[in-house]
């Protein structure tokens, strides 16, 4: 079967490997472009959030490229994302596109259904159970390696001497991961990619501003949806840390990892969790970034995203109490790259000014 999936950041490298090694043909979803968004906007409801529109556009594109099925995620709400696949199915039916949607609901809620769908994919590709487990393990290793490389790249970029070196290095590194076939090869590829990034000529004298990036998972993870915000900030000389990585849940070394703690941290401000999506997380993450001495936080969210609107209405209080500036960027099909860039530049200027002012005040205190 020709199978495709939604594109989210660089995860397509791992998912492509997964689909191919389950014995199916993989239609790699193209990077979301203006064309993708146009298609999505044409057929999607007006007030659907931007991930819905991009995904719909992607589905139409892959269907035209010959895909027979897409594997996607379900959910139990109350965020709309859990209902995406149902609406996508309705809309594709209306368009007359014969694309089958295989939605993976949460295994904890309905293990039978989850396993049934995995097993359907496994038998369709003619892969044994043992092989399936191996393939899943390797895929996970790829996801983790990709995230490791990305995290490092965002630390290196603000210090690079020649603009673009880091981006070139990470692209080559991801190609290594793409070509790796087993766990051992992935380990080596990861090491080589890291070496490339370490080899980027840096100016370690710089003390870049640090900005935490929080918000809704899709626009945080997919650079094409957030106008390459981390790249933009990196090239402005800002170090960024992102709250969400696909492999976050198994990590201990990132700032943001344990979900339960996040709910407890947010409780003084939002006494209910979860409220769907990453709403509560955004509030807690703002607090965490403030505690870790970050200079500012950028909240990314799709226009009309319900949980993030709740978060946005509460974040001003958090920002005031913890003295950390927060810039919210709502993204929709009208958002232009120049607009995002201007707002970010102004925000970075503000942070720079705050840092200098604090520095001066610090000196004064000592001189007295």
């Amino acid at each position: 079967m020709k199978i495709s999936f939604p594109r989210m950041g660089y995860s397509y490298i791992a998912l492509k490997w997964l689909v191919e090694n389950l014995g199916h043909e993989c239609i790699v979803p193209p990077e979301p472009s203006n064309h993708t968004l146009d298609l999505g906007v044409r057929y999607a409801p007006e007030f659907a959030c931007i991930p819905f529109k991009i995904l719909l556009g992607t589905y139409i594109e892959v269907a035209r490229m010959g895909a027979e099925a897409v594997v996607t995620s379900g959910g139990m709400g109350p965020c709309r994302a859990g209902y995406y696949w149902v609406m996508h199915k309705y809309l594709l039916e209306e368009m007359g596109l014969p694309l089958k949607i295989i939605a993976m609901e949460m295994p904890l809620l309905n293990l039978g259904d989850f396993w049934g769908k995995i097993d359907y994919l496994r038998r369709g590709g003619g892969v044994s159970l043992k092989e399936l487990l191996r393939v899943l393990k390797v895929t996970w290793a790829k996801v983790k390696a990709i995230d490791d490389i990305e995290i490092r790249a965002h630390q290196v970029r603000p210090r690079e001497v020649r603009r673009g070196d880091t981006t070139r290095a990470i692209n080559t590194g991801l190609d290594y991961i793409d070509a790796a076939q087993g766990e051992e090869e992935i380990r080596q590829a990861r090491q080589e990619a890291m070496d490339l990034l370490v080899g980027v000529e840096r100016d370690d004298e710089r003390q870049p501003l640090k900005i935490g990036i929080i918000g809704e998972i899709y626009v945080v993870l997919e650079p094409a949806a957030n106008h390459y915000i981390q790249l933009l900030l990196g090239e402005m000389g800002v170090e960024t840390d992102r709250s969400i990585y696909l492999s976050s849940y198994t990590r201990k070394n990132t700032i943001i990892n344990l979900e339960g703690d996040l709910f407890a941290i947010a409780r003084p401000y939002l006494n209910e969790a979860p409220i769907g999506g990453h709403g509560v997380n955004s509030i807690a993450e703002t607090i965490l970034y403030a505690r870790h001495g970050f200079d500012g936080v950028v909240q990314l969210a799709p226009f009309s995203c319900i949980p993030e609107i709740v978060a946005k209405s509460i974040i001003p209080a958090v920002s005031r109490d913890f003295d950390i500036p927060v810039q919210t960027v709502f993204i929709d099909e009208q958002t232009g790259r120049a607009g995002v860039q201007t707002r970010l530049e102004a925000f970075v200027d503000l942070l720079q000014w705050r840092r200098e002012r604090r520095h001066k005040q610090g000196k004064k205190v000592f001189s007295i």
Partner: protein
Amino acid sequence: MYKVGIPRSLAYFVYLPLWKTFITELGHEVVESPPTSRDILDRGVKEAVNDACIPIKLYHGHAAHLAGQCDLLFCPRLVSVRKHGDFGSETFCPKFLGLPDMVRLGLKDLPPLLDTRIDLKPFGSGNWEVARDIGQRLGNSMARCRRALRLGMAAQRSFRSLCQQGMLADAALEAVFNGVEPTRQTGTKQDITIAVVGYPYAIYDPYINAGLIKILQQQGVKIVTQDMLSERELNRQNRKLPKTLFWYFSNRAVYGGLHFMSEGQADGLIHVTAFACGPDSMVDRLLEIEAKRHGTPYLPIAVDEHTGEAGVRTRVEAFLDMLRYQRRRR
């Protein structure tokens, strides 16, 4: 004795009989905010986060209006009212879940909030847990709480039964509290039946939907809404969907729409939706596609702070003209 304020928005239109009777029977005074006006709407638009939907802004307006008039503001956190849905996890829109915090942090000079968490999904006696919590906060005895809850539930039941006899919720509220003789919908001649589905706070707030209900009644339309159906009739529609929605009010609107379409009771379907409502972006298109498949004429009416009476009237009249024309041709 406290003065407890209840904003006239959101769940007010379906749960007021229970809330008001309960609080009054506990010996406290209930202060309701006045019907929505330009003033209240403007206030809400000013105070609420600018990306919020109109109903949430409106709620902020009503809450702000009550500030200074009451000792406590009743703003319950509605989490769930039943165990329903594919995973038994039906809840409310995230904005309902975060509402007390949004209001508390967004508005200044508010009285303390009575923000009891209402989550009836896990327990059998959930109503009692909620009643006890409110009673404790208001300093009432348990016996008094129990009695007040019983009377509140009775008022709620009679409200429900009036609705199911074909009364619109606002008329039923009037009948429950003021003892007005329950009047059936009467008009000049009712030659057409239209199902109006949507959220109670969009349908029954005449200011925000520019008097849609009145316009329909003037045009000789018999109105049916999802609130006139019994739980059983509504929940039966569940099977027709690939997956239930996650939100209580949305499920009711969709089930209601599906019921009227499949039973053929209604000549047309009007969906009242609020501008920038998250769940409605799904509900609206779902109903539109289902209406097309059922062959039922469908009119979505999106309301926002700029909705004018003339705009709604024009669309409704055109819709009715089309329905009557179709009927004559048949």
